[in-house]
C-alpha cells in the first residue's frame, strides 16, 4: 500500500462501515419507536388485510314434495378495473350492445381516471351467463385482432366479471302471492320471503381477510340461510291457479281466490289468486300491484262473506243448545232486530222450516232469529272463538284481521246481531273463513293455519307440528252440522255435488257495502265446503269478486267448488267413497 493512497482506503473503509451502522441504527430506531410501530403496522395491514363481508347464500324454498320454488342462480357484476382500461369507448359500446346499458353512462364510468381510492367501478349488475359469454367473446376477439397494437385500438381490457348469487324462482308466477320476492338488495318482500326473511337470509359475517399467503386463515363458518319446506303442493297449486283463472274469465269476475286447507293439520295445500307476477321480475311489482292492491288477497283482503258465515252462526247455535236440528221456525219473510227489518235474500216468506231447511234455503230471517235466540254475548263469544276479528296467525306477511264489531264498540248496534248472523256487517279474509269453517270439518277443533311445514337449518330439518288454535264447538256439534250441510246440498241437487264423493258445504252471496249502502247489482260470490264427509281431507273456500255471469254464489261459486274437488281427489289420490269403504274393509 502506498502511503499517499492510505487516506483513500481509510475513506472507503469508513464509508463501508458507517453505512451499515446507519442502516442498523435506523432499523433499531424504527422498530423501537412505539408511535411508528403502530403506524407501520396499520400501513402494512391496510395493504395485506381486506375487511371482507361474507354473505351466505339465501336459503331455498321447496313445496311439500321437495320441488324447488325459490333458489339461487349465478349472475354477474360487470365492472371496470380502471388502471387496466385501454379504450373506454369500446367498453361503453360493448356494454350498450350486449346489456342494453346507457352508452353515455357507461362511457362516463369507464373513463373515470383511476386513483388510490377508485380502482373498481360497477357498470351493471344481475348480468346473465349468456350476456357475459358474449362480452368475453368480444374481449377475446379484440385481444387476438388488436392485442399488440398501440393505445386507442379496440380493446375491452379492464372489463371484469364478478359472479355472485341472486334469487331465482323456477316456477315464475306459481304461488307468487305465497312466496313473495327478494329485491336487488336481498330484502324479502311479501309472503314467506318477508315473513321468514331473517331465517332465509342467514347471518352476514365481516372479517379481516389477509392477502398474505403465510397468514392464510380458515374461513369463518358460514352456514347458508335456513331453507323452508312449505305445506303447499306444487301440482295442486298449479291446478287451482289454472281453475281460478278459467272461472274468473268464465264468470266475468273482477278477481278470485281459492283456498285449500287440510282441516286435520291446518296445512295450506293451495292458495290461488288471480293476480300473480313472475317473481323473477320483481321490479314490475309496482305496475302489477298498484297502490292499495293487496299482494295476496287470500290473507290481506277482507270482505263481507255473506251466507257462508251462516255455517258459523248455526254451529254456535247448535253447540250452545239454542237450537237443535229439529227446532222449528216459522218464516214470515221478515224479522225486526234493533229497529231494523231483515228480509230473506229473495224477499219471500218460506213458512215452517227446520234448521236444515234454514241452511238449505239460506234464510236470513231464520239465522237472525237464531242469533237473537242465542243472545248477544253467546253469539259473539262463539264468533271470537272461531277467530273472527283476529288474525289467524298464518306465517305469511301482511295478514289482515278483518272486523267483528262487538257490543260495547261505539259503532255496534243491536241490529248488527241480526245482520252479522248471515255474514253482513262483519268482514274476514278468505283464509280466516276457511280456517274457521275447518273447525266444523275437523270435529270441532280449529287447527292453526300455516304455510311452512319444515325449517332446514344447520343441516337439520325441524318439522312444524300442527297446533290446535281453538276448539270452538264440540265434536258432536261438528258432526251434526256437517250432516245437515251435506244433506242440504243433496236435497237441493246443488251444483257443488261431486259424483262419487259426499261433501258438505254452503254457498254465499254477499252484497257489497258502499258509502251509499249495499248494492244489489254487484256481489261477492262464495262457497265453502269440505269432504269426504266421513273423513275430511280438504276444506275448499271459493271467492269470486263481482261476478257478471250471475250474482248468486250457488250459480257461479258452487260449480267452481265441484271442479276444484274433482281435481283435488285425483291429485290427492282419494278414491270415491264406495271404493274407499270397500278398500278399508279389506
Amino acid at each position: 500500500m502506498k502511503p499517499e493512497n492510505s487516506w483513500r482506503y481509510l475513506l472507503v473503509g469508513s464509508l463501508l462501515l458507517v453505512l451499515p451502522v446507519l442502516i442498523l441504527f435506523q432499523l433499531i430506531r424504527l422498530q423501537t419507536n412505539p408511535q411508528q410501530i403502530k403506524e407501520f403496522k396499520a400501513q402494512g395491514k391496510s395493504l395485506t388485510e381486506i375487511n371482507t363481508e361474507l354473505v351466505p347464500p339465501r336459503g331455498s324454498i321447496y313445496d311439500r314434495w321437495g320441488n324447488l320454488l325459490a333458489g339461487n342462480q349465478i349472475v354477474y357484476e360487470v365492472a371496470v378495473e380502471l388502471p387496466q382500461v385501454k379504450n373506454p369507448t369500446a367498453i361503453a359500446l360493448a356494454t350498450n350492445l350486449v346489456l342494453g346499458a346507457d352508452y353515455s353512462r357507461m362511457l362516463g364510468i369507464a373513463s373515470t381516471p383511476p386513483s388510490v381510492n377508485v380502482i373498481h367501478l360497477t357498470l351493471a349488475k344481475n348480468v346473465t351467463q349468456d350476456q357475459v359469454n358474449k362480452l368475453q367473446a368480444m374481449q377475446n376477439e379484440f385481444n387476438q385482432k388488436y392485442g399488440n397494437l398501440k393505445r386507442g385500438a379496440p380493446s375491452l381490457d379492464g372489463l371484469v366479471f364478478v359472479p355472485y348469487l341472486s334469487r331465482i324462482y323456477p316456477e315464475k308466477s306459481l304461488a307468487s302471492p305465497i312466496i313473495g320476492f327478494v329485491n336487488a338488495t336481498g330484502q324479502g318482500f311479501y309472503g314467506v320471503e318477508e315473513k321468514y326473511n331473517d331465517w332465509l337470509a342467514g347471518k352476514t359475517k365481516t372479517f379481516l381477510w389477509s392477502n398474505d399467503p403465510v397468514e392464510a386463515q380458515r374461513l369463518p363458518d358460514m352456514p347458508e340461510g335456513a331453507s323452508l319446506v312449505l305445506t303447499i303442493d306444487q301440482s295442486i297449486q298449479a291446478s287451482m291457479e289454472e281453475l281460478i283463472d278459467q272461472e274468473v274469465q268464465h264468470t266475468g269476475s273482477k278477481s278470485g281466490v281459492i283456498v285449500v286447507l287440510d282441516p286435520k293439520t291446518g296445512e295450506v295445500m293451495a292458495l290461488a289468486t288471480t293476480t300473480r307476477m313472475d317473481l323473477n321480475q320483481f321490479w314490475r311489482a309496482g305496475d302489477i300491484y298498484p297502490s292499495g292492491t293487496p299482494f295476496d288477497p287470500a290473507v290481506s283482503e277482507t270482505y263481507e262473506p255473506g251466507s257462508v258465515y251462516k255455517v258459523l252462526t248455526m254451529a254456535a247455535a247448535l253447540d250452545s243448545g239454542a237450537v237443535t236440528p229439529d227446532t222449528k221456525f216459522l218464516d214470515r219473510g221478515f224479522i225486526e232486530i234493533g229497529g231494523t227489518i231483515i228480509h230473506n235474500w229473495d224477499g219471500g216468506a218460506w213458512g215452517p222450516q227446520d234448521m236444515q231447511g234454514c241452511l238449505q234455503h239460506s234464510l236470513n230471517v231464520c239465522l237472525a232469529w237464531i242469533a237473537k235466540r242465542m243472545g248477544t254475548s253467546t253469539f259473539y263469544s262463539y264468533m271470537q272463538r272461531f277467530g273472527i276479528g283476529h288474525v289467524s296467525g298464518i306465517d305469511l306477511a301482511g295478514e289482515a284481521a278483518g272486523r267483528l264489531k262487538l257490543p260495547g264498540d261505539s259503532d255496534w248496534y243491536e241490529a248488527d246481531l241480526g245482520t252479522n248472523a248471515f255474514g253482513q256487517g262483519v268482514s274476514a279474509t278468505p283464509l280466516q273463513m276457511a280456517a274457521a269453517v275447518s273447525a266444523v270439518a275437523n270435529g270441532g277443533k280449529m287447527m292453526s293455519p300455516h304455510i311452512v311445514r319444515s325449517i332446514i337449518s344447520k343441516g337439520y330439518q325441524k318439522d312444524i307440528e300442527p297446533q290446535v288454535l281453538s276448539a270452538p264447538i264440540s265434536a258432536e256439534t261438528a258432526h251434526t252440522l256437517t250432516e245437515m250441510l251435506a244433506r242440504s246440498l243433496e236435497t237441493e241437487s246443488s251444483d257443488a255435488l261431486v259424483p262419487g264423493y259426499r261433501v258438505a258445504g254452503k254457498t254465499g252471496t254477499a252484497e257489497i257495502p258502499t258509502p251509499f249502502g249495499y248494492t244489489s247489482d254487484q256481489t261477492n260470490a262464495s262457497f265453502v265446503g269440505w269432504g269426504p264427509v266421513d273423513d275430511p281431507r280438504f276444506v275448499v273456500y271459493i271467492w269470486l269478486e263481482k261476478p257478471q255471469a250471475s250474482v248468486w254464489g250457488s250459480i257461479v261459486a258452487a260449480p267452481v267448488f265441484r271442479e276444484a274437488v274433482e281435481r283435488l281427489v285425483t291429485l290427492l289420490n282419494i278414491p270415491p267413497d264406495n271404493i274407499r269403504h270397500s278398500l278399508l274393509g279389506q
Partner: protein
Amino acid sequence: MNRAGVTLLQEDGMERVERLSQAYSQAPWRKQMQILGLFLLMVVLIALVASIYLNVTGRAGALGRDIQKKQAEMLDDEQRISDMKSKLGILYSAGEMERRARALGFQSIDPEDTMYLAAPGYVERQPVNLAPVYQPQIISAPVLPPQYTESLFVWLQKQFNQVLFPLFKVQP
C-alpha cells in the same frame, strides 16, 4: 554473582522465552486462514439458517396460497351447486313438467277414469325430508372419578377410615 553475570542470565532467559514463544506461535498465513475459515463458517451458518428459513417460509407461503385457492374454489363450487340446483328446479317446474308430459302423449285424467286397486304394503307418499330430523342432544356431564376432585386430606381420611372402620363397625 556480580552485576554483569545477572544481566547475562536475564538475556539468556529472554531469549529462551522468545524461542519458546516462536516455537509455539502460528505462522501469519495460518492466522489469516483461521480468520477466513471462521468468517466462512459464519457465512455458511447464516446461509444455512437463511435457507432453512426461506424454505420453511416458502413452503408455508405455497401452502397458504393453496389454501386460499381451495377456499376460493370452495366458494365457487357452492355457487355452482346452488346454480345447478336452480337449473334442476326449472327442469322440474310444474309448467315444464306438464309441457314434457303432454309432448310424450300424457293427458289429464278425470276422476271417473281413475281405477283404484288395493296394494298390500303400499305406503302413502310422505312429505319430503331434505335433512336429518333435528333431535335435541342431551349432553351428559362428564363423571370424574373422585381421585380427580378430592383433596389429599380427604383421601387420607378415607384410607384411614377404610382401615379403621371395620374395627369399630357395629354389626347388627
